[in-house]
């Protein structure tokens, strides 16, 4: 019995040691995201895929690190980056003043717009018509932040983008303000809703890193530049977004 115990113990110790060295060989690059934001990041089978996931993978490859993706609520991403629980936040994140106070941003890697989704028979035809309406948004997104500027509108802050869209299809809200690419996906998956031609605002996506971590920021920026020059960045975007 004692012998068996010692064998088991030493075997498990050996195992632990192997695991330990395994980690040490290649450093992890932890990316925080909210994988309910197609086509930038979403769950496909066991994996989290999308434009951001692939760009992050390419950046990790450039840096020679292993990419680990952590899926969390969008409004927790900046906190995760700040507290060091993740190295970077890649989540279709727009640079805003409030966010800049808490994290540093890389050079933008994509442009986007905040668009308005309404029901086909809605009387809302332009952003000006939103005054006094009930508007669904995803908590903490730029759509949420901009929506608060709309006069007399009541804003319903859902935890997930698709829940806001679901509330729209069920007639619980009059309109949804959300990023244009996810909006296209949502509209293609749901009947009876459309995107207004006139966008609410335009913006640029960038990667968030912990404030003062210039080493990582420079590495990320260098990788983005390289990916832009080689055309790989465009390749990834084209893979997910079919040009109109």
């Amino acid at each position, binding site marked *: 019995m004692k012998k068996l115990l010692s064998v088991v113990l030493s075997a498990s110790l050996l195992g632990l040691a192997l695991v330990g060295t395994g980690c040490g060989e290649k450093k992890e690059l932890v990316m925080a995201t909210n994988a309910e934001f197609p086509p930038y990041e979403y769950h496909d089978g066991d994996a989290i895929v999308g434009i951001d996931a692939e760009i992050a993978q390419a950046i990790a490859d450039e840096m020679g690190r292993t990419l680990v993706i952590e899926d969390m609520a969008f*409004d927790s991403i900046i906190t995760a980056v700040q507290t060091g629980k993740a190295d970077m936040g890649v989540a279709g994140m727009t640079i805003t003043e409030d966010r800049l106070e808490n994290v540093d941003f890389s050079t933008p890697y994509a442009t986007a717009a905040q668009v308005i989704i309404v029901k086909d028979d809605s009387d809302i035809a332009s952003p000006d018509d939103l005054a006094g309406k009930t508007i669904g948004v995803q908590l903490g997104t730029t759509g949420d932040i901009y929506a608060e500027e709309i006069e007399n509108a009541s804003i319903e802050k859902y935890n997930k983008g698709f829940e806001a869209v679901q509330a729209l299809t069920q*007639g619980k809200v009059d309109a949804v303000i959300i990023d244009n690419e996810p909006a296209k996906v949502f509209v293609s998956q749901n009947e009876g809703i459309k995107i207004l031609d006139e966008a609410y605002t335009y913006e640029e996506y960038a990667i968030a890193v912990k404030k003062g971590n210039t080493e990582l920021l420079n590495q990320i920026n260098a990788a983005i530049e390289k990916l832009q020059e080689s055309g790989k960045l465009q390749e990834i975007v084209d893979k997910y977004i079919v040009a109109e």
Partner: protein
Amino acid sequence: MEFADKFQKDFYLNFIKDDRWRYIVNGLGVTLKVTLFAVLIGIVLGFVVAIIRSTHDKAGSMSKFLRGTLNVLNFLCNVYLTVIRGTPVLVQLLIIYFVIFASVRIDKSFVAIIAFGINSGAYVAEIVRGGIMSIDQGQFEAGRSLGFSFTKTMMLIILPQTFKNVLPALGNEFIVLLKETSVAGYIALEDLTKGGDIIRSRTYSALFPLLAVAIIYLAIVILLSQLLKLLERRLRSSEK
């Protein structure tokens, strides 16, 4: 000194700037409203279910029709208990909001009150049933021997004793309920927890909003426990 400066700055950013404290205060109002009405629904539902179930188990001879009705009611109560206690309250809340009330614009606090009330009722029912069953059978027989009807025995002898016995467990259930309402944010209802989340989504600081929310819940629970203790003492005074 630097720490004090940062503290002051963070405090300003999280609560004062843009009147962000309103999210907490309004959220507290919603949380209290939802909890209060859910507790009321829970008590009513719970007592009704508990009385049906224990009558089914306890009551002696009766007409065939009554026994049949009781069997059906008891079966329905069992289904209710199994389903509600077998699924998470968050899932029940989402089902009520997105499935049962699909395609209607409905007040979200109302949805939350219904969801948490129905949920709480199942737990209250079992607590109360346990209380009823724990009363000595002799009490029941004494009531009947004195000429009270079944209903009168229940109302005048069994339930008053039950209430006193189950009060600690009921208080516990209400404390749990208060804290469970914190998932109401999933249907975009701006309760206390969601209020803190909204501040967090604006300021990106975790400490102050979460701490404020936690302290408020704690304060309510402490207050509630004290009130229950007082009530328990009052009810016990008759024993001396």
